């Protein structure tokens, strides 16, 4: 078999089609099937040794549980094997390029994990005496400082638990500010390209969402914005805008947009999901932003963990700062004070309430600060520059074969293609993405943003080497050529080589099975029993 210099076969199929047995176990070598714990565990088994010792008489006052829980246990080696086997059915950043646009799947340094597990951070209780946790408060304050400096702002609400929770926090601060000023505007403007969380957040707070069209180049249509503002004079609570936007483009008119919104009496909420493109290159505070959440799990690399936990601190402009929720840290001449209750607030501090019990995602704060300190001012800027460089490198590597909806202009940290290059191939965006799985790649973000037909949003991040990008580009080119040659089978049934083939999502939603139930005992007919 001939191999090229990158160690991959020179043509599809060169890898050799040999006899593949149907196995008796359903396993395929290292690719192993694993039942549910309820099918392998036993009600008598337990993987934790617990000694009851001498128990006193119980004082449960008639509240004792009557029925069994019905959960089997596993001995430690069984549990280890079960979850190790499950893990091997997952794609991961550590295993390969993960070009999910808008999700920022960058390297997660293990130093951050080690720091978060120091007992002084991991084993402290949120309500133990404040005097026993000065280092925890110092860490939160230090991270707040790094976030404020890098965004050019002077206040940050640390406690939101995730990006969408940060959005909610920012919009609540905006609503509180309007209320404090005796205003009750009803409308929040949201561009078409926004993440779904934006309109969902605004609606949750009782706002009416009015959509703003995009121009042909994918950015907000300033004229349309002005017209909409004029139509709703005096009734604009604010705008929720992602910048860089979800098409991977920086909104050139950002200052003008901010000015128009401010003139209309509204606030500018910036969705900071894509802040990772501009750290050290532009500060949201200089762009007229009033509130912006920062996804610590994107920009500052706290692990995504299969869908959480996230963390979404919100930086606030001076106008919104007084409304920041409880708890917050106050700097005094005597040091740092943790303010946890309304009763402890001073004049000028008007928290709108509380987003969550306790102090927020401490474990994520430690990781994010570890990441930021490691990079420093120079490294953070370099990371953004490399992210943008890598995305543009992918863009020029593919733009002749795939289709750029907004022309050949530089993108930020992610590059957006549409599906017009697949026209007449009978291959859809979904099929194309699933074929990437067989090539060993996680698909890019698909069908988002909604402003583009069959969107494919690719974000390589700064964590990829040039060789890795070259291989990715070469693979994508091979797939495009294959689609154009009409080799539809490669796409329509893909993935063929993953732990699962394509799954029946319609069936799953029509008759939802959301938990395991014990199978009915097999019916034995009298004849069969004889």
């Amino acid at each position, binding site marked *: 078999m001939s191999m090229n210099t990158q160690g991959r076969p020179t043509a599809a199929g060169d890898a050799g089609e040999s006899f593949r047995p149907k196995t008796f176990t359903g396993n395929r070598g290292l690719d192993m099937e694993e039942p549910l714990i309820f099918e392998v565990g036993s009600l008598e088994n*337990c*993987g934790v040794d617990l000694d009851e010792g001498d128990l006193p008489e119980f004082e449960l006052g008639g509240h004792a549980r009557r029925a069994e829980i019905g959960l089997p*246990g596993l001995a430690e080696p069984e549990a280890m094997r079960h979850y190790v086997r499950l893990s091997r059915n997952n794609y991961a950043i550590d295993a390969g390029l993960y070009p999910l646009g808008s999700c920022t799947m960058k390297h997660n340094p293990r*130093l951050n994990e080690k720091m978060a597990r120091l007992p002084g951070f991991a084993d402290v209780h949120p309500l133990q005496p404040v005097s026993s946790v000065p280092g925890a408060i110092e860490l939160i304050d230090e991270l707040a400082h790094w976030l404020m400096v890098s965004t050019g702002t002077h206040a940050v609400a640390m406690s939101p638990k995730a990006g969408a929770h940060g959005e909610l926090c920012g919009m609540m601060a905006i609503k509180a500010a309007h209320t404090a000023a005796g205003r009750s505007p009803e409308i929040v403007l949201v561009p078409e390209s926004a993440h779904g969380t934006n309109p969902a957040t605004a609606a949750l707070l009782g706002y009416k969402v009015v959509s703003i069209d995009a121009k042909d180049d994918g950015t907000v249509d300033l004229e349309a914005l002005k017209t909409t503002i004029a139509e709703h004079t005096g009734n604009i609570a604010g705008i929720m805008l992602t910048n860089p936007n979800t098409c991977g483009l920086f909104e050139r008119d950002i200052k003008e947009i901010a000015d128009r919104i401010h003139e209309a009496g509204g606030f500018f909420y910036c969705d900071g999901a894509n802040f990772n493109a501009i750290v050290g290159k532009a500060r949201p505070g200089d762009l007229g932003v009033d509130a912006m959440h920062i996804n610590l799990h994107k920009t500052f690399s706290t692990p995504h963990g299969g869908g959480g936990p996230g963390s979404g601190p919100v930086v606030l402009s001076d106008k919104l700062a007084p409304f920041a929720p409880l708890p917050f840290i106050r700097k005094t001449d005597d040091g740092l004070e943790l303010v946890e209750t309304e009763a402890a607030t001073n004049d000028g501090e008007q928290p709108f309430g509380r987003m969550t019990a306790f102090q927020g995602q401490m474990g994520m704060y430690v990781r994010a600060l570890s990441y930021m300190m490691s990079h420093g001012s120079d490294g953070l800027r370099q990371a953004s520059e490399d992210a943008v460089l890598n995305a543009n490198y992918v863009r020029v590597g593919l733009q002749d074969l795939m289709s750029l909806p907004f022309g050949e202009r530089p993108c930020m940290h992610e590059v957006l293609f549409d599906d017009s290059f697949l026209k007449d191939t009978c291959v859809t965006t979904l099929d194309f993405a699933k074929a990437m799985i067989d090539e060993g790649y996680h698909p890019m973000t698909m069908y988002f943003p909604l402003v583009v037909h069959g969107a494919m949003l690719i974000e390589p991040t700064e964590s990829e080497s040039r060789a890795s990008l070259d291989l990715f580009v070469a693979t994508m080119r091979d797939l495009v050529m294959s689609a154009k040659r009409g080799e539809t089978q490669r796409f329509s049934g893909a993935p063929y080589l993953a732990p699962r083939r394509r799954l*029946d999502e319609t069936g799953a939603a029509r008759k939802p099975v*959301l938990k395991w139930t014990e199978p009915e005992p097999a019916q034995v007919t009298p004849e069969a029993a004889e």
Partner: protein
Amino acid sequence: MRYLPLTDTDRGDMLARIGVNSIDDLFTDIPEDVRFKGLLDLPKRASEMEVERKLSAMAAKNTSAGSVPFFVGAGAYKHHVPATVDHLIQRSEFLTSYTPYQPEIAHGTLQYQFEFQTQVAKLTAMDVANASMYDGSTGTGEAVLMAHRVTKKNKAVLSGGLHPQYREVVEGLSNMAGDQVISLPADPTGTEDILSQIDDETSCVVVQSPSFYGQLIDLKPIAEKAHQHKALLIAVFTEVVSLGLIEPPGTQGADIVVGEGQSIGNGLNYGGPYVGLFATRQKYVRQMPGRLCGETVDAEGKRGFVLTLSTREQHIRRDKATSNICTNSGLCCLAFTIHMSLLGQKGMTKLARINHGNAVKLKQQLGAVPGVDVLNSAYFNEFTLRLPKAADGVVEALAAKGILAGLPVSRLEPGKADLENLLVVASTEVNTDEDRAAFADALKEVLA
């Protein structure tokens, strides 16, 4: 920079390939007058050793729970987590994967989420559970919003036994959304008259058991009254281990069960990340917030799992979504699942018995200290003491003696004279006889 693979040669070659002269040519969309020049006013890059030195110094200033006799609960609990749990959740394939939107290559995540949902449904004795919320407090806020959607009413009645910070989360969200909240006064003994607060306008009643003060509450009469008025009972817990020993909310008529799952698999972490548990009745499943994992089959007929009923969610429904939530607490949910799989019902029951037994022993010892009253008649692993003087000063004095003694209620409910002397204490499996004796002796000295 150790995390960046590109070399300066790579960067130069790549810029040339792109057809620009410098990296700044790729940032020209940022208006010139707001483009940031120079370096942010922050320290420059640091080696792994330097970062470790700085952060370790900060960590060393804190008193960790494991280093002293420790009795603080009130919503977060110090338990022993088996070493296997932390090892497994650090596997790359779990730690560094995204939300399982591509189920064919996220089957590991989806299968454990399905296992998690089953575990939570069984523990709470409810029909269905979601794939977790941020934590118990935000989950409670979401439960109230869900009840409003189900009942098409908007008045929530909150028990005085609800954790004060959970109450504040619900109140904040409701005030902002224009919904009504009736919050009953603090109820350390579980003797409030909540039934008289329920009427036809009530959308839901929110009751915590064991309560913030540790009292076990009979939910059945509250469920009955709520249902008479077409309102839902939202049952809250902050200590999931209690479900190993006490009657689950599902058999007491709860419509939504929401709670904090931190105790199983997860450390204290100074308040987060934690894992919210959320379960409900089958008939309300389409009104549920958060992610759901469902069973299905793949093209070859093999059992598989996918995220399902996503038409409830923001990325499809946008402003019509049931919630703006788009994450769960993935890795904490995995930690919960692994720890629970190790325990099984046998271990969970045993763990709960030990917790309760330790609490009874602690109650006996502290209750014997002159001037100390125990307020709770029935409790799990936590109860409330009335001290002869203000509890916050006592806790500080005990901390000075190296004992972290519990939560003075006044820290969360300041300025309320009747609560000033109350101390909420918890005892879990980690406490030894020596810990309890040290606590009782020190309390005696401080109160003398």
